[in-house]
């Protein structure tokens, strides 16, 4: 049975130590989502994330378990911010451990697609006062 860790964090994710080893895993893949400086060509100050607990954590856990089972992962770790995350800060981190690279990549990509489509997480842009020239 794969390990599934889910954590919602108030504010930006802190710099993490390198994720530990999981016995037998030959591939460890980590995706970090960082708030970009613009959205729709407008300068951004931050994104505001909102969750609906405990539904959000339950959905992320269920999705992690499904991805682990479908893709044969050994472990999966999900960290997501709630509240304000400024430009350049990390709001999301997904780490997957698998025997080989290919299934890790497939699981990571599918998890994020599914999360964006299904999980109770919302983001709203906080635009900067000054707009970018057209």
């Amino acid at each position: 049975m794969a390990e599934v860790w889910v954590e919602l964090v108030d504010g930006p994710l802190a710099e993490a130590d390198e994720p530990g080893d999981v016995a037998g895993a030959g591939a460890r893949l980590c995706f970090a989502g960082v708030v970009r400086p613009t959205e729709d060509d407008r300068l951004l100050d931050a994104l505001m994330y909102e969750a609906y607990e405990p539904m959000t954590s339950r959905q992320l856990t269920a999705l992690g378990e499904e991805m682990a089972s479908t893709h044969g992962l050994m472990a999966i770790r999900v960290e997501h911010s709630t509240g304000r995350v400024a430009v350049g800060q990390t709001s999301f981190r997904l780490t997957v451990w698998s025997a080989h690279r290919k299934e890790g990549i497939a699981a990571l990509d599918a998890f994020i697609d599914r999360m964006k489509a299904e999980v109770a997480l919302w983001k709203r842009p906080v635009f900067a006062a000054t707009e970018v020239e057209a």
Partner: protein
Amino acid sequence: MSGDARACDVRLFGRQAEIAGAGSVAVEVVAGSTTCAEVLTRLGEAVPGLLPSLEASVLAVDHAVASPTRRLEGDEELALIGLVGGG
């Protein structure tokens, strides 16, 4: 309690809360009769600005995604889960 009509709050989040100008909207639920699909319809009637996004939304009942055909008692916690994901 079947047959009782009561006003139930449906929680809203993100862009849908902005459109409604509120974190929740009350809709009428008849205990044992009103379905989740009907709640979505009534949300659209109460706040027409939500109509375009309702197709890509589901109703959560007590923190779990519910079938559109599920009948409500009126004492559940209801939330509109609009599909504008994080990450």
